[in-house]
């Protein structure tokens, strides 16, 4: 007759693993949100660093590209952040960090906020490029990853200690 093996004391481990399995989605969502907040803060700072100038340069400089106008910079202020998470219950958790949807009133016309941000970030045929959003994204990547790991670790530890 083959010998059997009985293990005892695994109830706690079973509970923890079961709870971790159920909480995996919310943990990932919380970590993603915290990481996205780091990038969103970097975007908000990026708006502050946008250089502004007059619409037309004087004299010999008149044909040169201009910088963003003060009112364009003001229109982007407060328009960066994190969009709502998708919550369809699927395995993927998505959010968007960046500039808001919608329009702002500029020069008497509605202008898409994303279009304005893109024009400043990438430049146009008449405006200097100021890649402040691209720079913010690159610079905050490592910090965002570190925050996500820290958040996930803390939440998993909470479950383990219950």
């Amino acid at each position: 007759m083959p010998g059997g093996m009985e293990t005892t004391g695994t109830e706690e481990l079973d509970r923890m693993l079961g709870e971790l399995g159920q909480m995996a989605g919310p943990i990932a969502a919380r970590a993603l949100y915290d990481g996205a907040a780091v990038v969103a803060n970097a975007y908000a700072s990026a708006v502050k660093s946008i250089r502004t100038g007059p619409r037309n340069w004087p004299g010999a400089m008149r044909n040169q590209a201009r910088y963003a106008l003060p009112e364009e910079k003001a229109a982007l202020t407060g328009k960066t952040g994190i969009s709502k998470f998708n919550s369809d219950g699927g395995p993927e958790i998505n959010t968007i960090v960046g500039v808001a949807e919608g329009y702002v009133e500029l020069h008497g016309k509605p202008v898409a906020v994303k279009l304005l941000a893109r024009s400043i970030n990438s430049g146009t045929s008449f405006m200097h490029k100021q890649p402040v959003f691209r720079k913010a994204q690159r610079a905050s990547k490592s910090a965002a990853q570190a925050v996500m790991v820290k958040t996930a670790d803390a939440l998993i530890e909470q479950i383990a200690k219950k």
Partner: protein
Amino acid sequence: MYEQLKTALMALTDIEFAEHEWTTRPAGNHGTIQLDFQTNSDNGDDHHQDQAWEGSVDVYTVGRGNAVAAEVEAILEEHCGSAWELNSTQIEQRMLHREYVFQIEVI
């Protein structure tokens, strides 16, 4: 590395390139190249971080300009390997504006 990339772009005959900005933009195909900021690039093997620069190439073409864009992309591929991408496209004043971003060492 950056200097070689710049030289190769400036040698193209179907498009005129300038570094940073044009004082007066040409009416035909034209572009700019510039270094934008210093960045850290991850070295996947040992998580060592290399200091590199991120720059951009802006290409303005009359019409679609696919042939010109292909020439620019071939040069980026040659000098930056896989460290480049088409970041945005936009129609501006009857020209197509492509913005490429790349990472490169500056020697």
